[in-house]
């Protein structure tokens, strides 16, 4: 597979110089296509202090098809589904937005940026988005609580 070379290259780049608050490892050393990403909650956000585990799955057609990003750690966020899948809606990962020249590092940084600044207009969890917009304080509280409960450093 031609994609393996690229993925290996990106992985070594990301492990050599990881972006802020992001640690990248392979879920299974033999499988390049599934990554385990540990993301620290960005400072100033209700997710601060938490460490979120993200599963990044690369399709075999990568980089022609976008990777999928899902939260293994439960998180209270308008752009992350509130089920056990925890799939994240990233604009740049939509098939028609995806560019093969985008790199995984950029995707992860974008995801972290989304933690800092949710995009309620682009939400999957409409209820949380509503709350984020109208009752930001309450949203903050719950998100903080969930972070404490689920994303504790242990």
């Amino acid at each position, binding site marked *: 597979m*031609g994609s393996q*070379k*690229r993925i290996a*290259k*990106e992985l070594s780049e990301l492990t050599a110089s990881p972006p802020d608050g992001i640690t990248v490892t392979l879920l299974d050393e033999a499988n390049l296509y599934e990554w385990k990403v540990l993301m620290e909650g960005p400072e100033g956000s209700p997710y601060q202090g938490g460490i979120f585990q993200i599963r990044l799955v690369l399709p075999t057609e990568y980089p*022609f098809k976008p990777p999928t990003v899902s939260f293994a750690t439960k998180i209270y966020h308008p752009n992350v589904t509130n089920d056990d899948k925890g799939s994240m809606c990233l604009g740049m990962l*939509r098939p*028609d937005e995806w560019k093969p*020249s985008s790199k995984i590092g950029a995707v992860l940084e974008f995801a972290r940026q989304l933690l800092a600044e949710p995009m309620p207009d682009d939400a999957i969890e409409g209820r949380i988005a509503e709350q984020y917009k109208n009752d930001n304080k309450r949203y903050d509280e719950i998100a903080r609580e969930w972070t404490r409960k689920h994303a504790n450093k242990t």
Partner: protein
Amino acid sequence: METATASASFSDSSHRPGRLRRFSQLRQNLSGHRSRNSISNRVSWLSSSLPGRDSTVTQVGNSTAPCPDSDQPTLARYTSAPTSSSRALALDNQPSSTDSARSNSPNEPSRTSNVMARLRSSSAMQGRPPRTLGRTTTPDGPTTSPEPTAAAAAANDAPAEGISTPPVEMQEGEEEANKPKQKATIRFFPYQDTYQNSRPSLPFVPVARTLPSESCVIRVGRYSERDGIPIPNPAEPSDAPVGFKSKVVSRKHCEFMFVNGQWHVKDVGSSSGTFLNHMRLSQPNMTSRLYSIKDGDIVQLGIDFRGGEEMIFRCVRIRIECNRSWQQQPNEFNKNTESLIKNLGKGDTADYSGCRECSICLGSVLRPYQCLFMAACAHVWHYKCISRLLHSPDYPMFQCPNCRAFTDLSAEVDDTPEYETESKKAAAAKAGPAPEDETEGPSRSATQTPAEAPATNAAGESSEPQEQSEGRAEEGELVTDVENLHLREEQLAEADAESRGSDSPAPNGSNDDLARSATINIPGFQPTQPLNVPPGRSSHLRADTPVRSETSDDNPLTPRNDSGPLAFDGRAGMQ
């Protein structure tokens, strides 16, 4: 008065011959069962903006004001455009304006239809704000004004125009100073919404237009035999209407115009709607305000009828490409790529440390012994990596995965044989920065696109003076030719003086200009195609779509090319 002005834009429906009446009914169905005669009563925003029965034309123009446009800083700038356009619609009732409009569009097949003439006069009016730009840059513009005189007079005596014009002039003056090279080029590509599994839209040949002057408007509507054979990619600047063979497209559907350095789209009263990125611009049969469009936007005309099973009932989805002229001119990036390619295979002298990476495999490209593919935008990949995108269902359309620029890979290649030698001479004469070498030829053919790069350069060069020469486009072929060939960025100061001097149609003068521009302007590496072109032929050079270079075929050599060496040795410039 009120109903007259309001209905002027859709009056075609009331004049429609019986044969077409069925379609109008069909479109009525599509458009939400709107009664033709009560539009202004039903449409709240229009009637609210026309409070009095005796409301004047200018108030129609003001109806653009309540539009949700407050987030646009440029609102004040371009509200003048809708104002004048609606005034033009009012003008339509005067027979004189239709006459003048027809007589002033020599580059289009003359149409006898009242509707089209009316449309044209309105488009001429919409162009007025940009036209003022032409006046500010070319002091003698007004004397040679190609605009319909009736329309111009009407525009001038209207008070609103007087108020709205000064800021327009000022702002455009600034923009002119900032980016004097920008030209109004737009391309339409068929867009298939493959990701949402929607029905296929109408296939069509990509269409490209470069406006002859900023005042021109590209009208889009249903294909009509009366328009003559459509030219998808005219070699020279053209505002020829764009027709689509679909019955969900109204005859007057929408218009594209270039206002204040920005492309805009406007629904001109289509029945089944114009959609910009899925948002409908106006209600059925209503004219919308101007909406600015940017590269990559999707404009959809109409909606599928009867499930779009038949081709003729499919909607049209257009992917817009505009504001890419910077990419089609020599810039830091493609110059750099070119020099890298030139140095390819030169062994120890070459420095590969700065070579670019292939965005697909993240490996480095631009090393010897690799099969590469370079797109017109000068992005390069390994052929193996990019081939998947090349041989896609969309072939021959190719979208650059780096910058999303579209290229038609099946377009004719503009490989005029003189190019290589001429450019070598140019480089030699100029002692250009990039030393020419033997590897140039082979490396070019290996990477497919260099032949396109000259085309882009040639196009960029030859069409950038349009801004300066706009407004005088119809002045006479010779004069425009001369202008197009010699105006350059660094020559702006003397440009006016020179062009005025060459207004006299002396062939000698134009040759001088040709030669002068050659010696002054062409950096060493650049293609020198403009030089090959005798005055009468420069129009071919203004092709806005370098990748579709049909021009090469009908651009044969002429004896004048022999003057090329003379031009390069510097003597010509000193005459």
